[in-house]
């Protein structure tokens, strides 16, 4: 009895086959692929990167604010400078930016 009803149900389900997407489906796929090819970043931006970008921006702003607040006097090393191993921002480094990236010994003139 159960096997028979299973068979009837299977037949009903088979009658439900044949669903199709709307006309022009292949063209829509090709357009999506073309969009991805033309601008892969933009294609995923809405989903994956917007939240990440906003979070990164907030963290950057907070870090810079904290860093500036931490630099008590001119010449003191701020948090950002410490993280990136930069020399403190002084009159020397302002007029000679390359000095920021050079070691003490290399930058001495």
């Amino acid at each position, binding site marked *: 009895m159960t096997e028979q*009803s*299973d068979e*009837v*149900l*299977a*037949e*009903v*389900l*088979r*009658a*439900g*086959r*044949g*669903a*199709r*997407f*709307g006309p022009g*489906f*292949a063209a*829509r*796929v*090709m357009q*999506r*692929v073309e969009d*991805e090819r033309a601008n892969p970043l933009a294609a995923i931006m809405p989903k994956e990167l917007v939240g990440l970008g906003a979070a990164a921006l907030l963290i950057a702003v907070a870090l810079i604010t904290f860093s500036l607040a931490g630099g008590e006097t001119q010449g003191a090393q701020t948090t950002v400078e410490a993280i990136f191993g930069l020399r403190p921002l002084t009159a020397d480094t302002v007029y000679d930016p390359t000095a920021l990236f050079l070691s003490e010994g290399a930058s001495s003139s």
Partner: protein
Amino acid sequence: MTPPASVRRTRTDDLRLVRLARAGNENAFREIVETYEGAVAATVIGMLGPGGTADDVGQEVFVRLWKSLHRYRGEAALKTYLTRIAINLSLNELKRRKRFIDRFISRDRDEDQSPLIEPTADGVEAVDRRDTRRVVQAAIQQLKPQHRAVVVLRMLEGHDTNTAAEILGVRPGTVMSRLSRAMQALKPLLADRMEGLDDGTV
């Protein structure tokens, strides 16, 4: 009668098309889309029901394939590979819908008490009973996602138990038990149709 393209196509044909598509041949990729559009539609519409979301997910299936062409080595048939992507994306969409429903519609629903048949906005009663396909699709939409996937793969697409298990990443025994439970759940939903079939009126 000429068999459909997806039946005539061999794995060698698929690999040749994939290689061409990988090399940037758009016509080859379009041929893949046109060949397997029906199989992907059966899976996605079976899982999600007809409508705009199913179309979007269907497009995404092929976009994912396009992105992963360099990884496809032909271990699985292209149809199986695409069906696996379609099932995964459909399950993700169902999870998204469930999150939305849980958050905004039924906050206090008890997970442990959730029935095998999940209530949906458009029940079988609302569907035109003369349209078998729509009735069957509406009935399948009442099943839990995991049971729905098994019914779609085994009953609508005609995959064997082992292939369905491979696509779903579960054991064949799990497929068989899920199918059995799903069939039991479907019987009352499709009782009218089953009687009609017995009478020869469908």
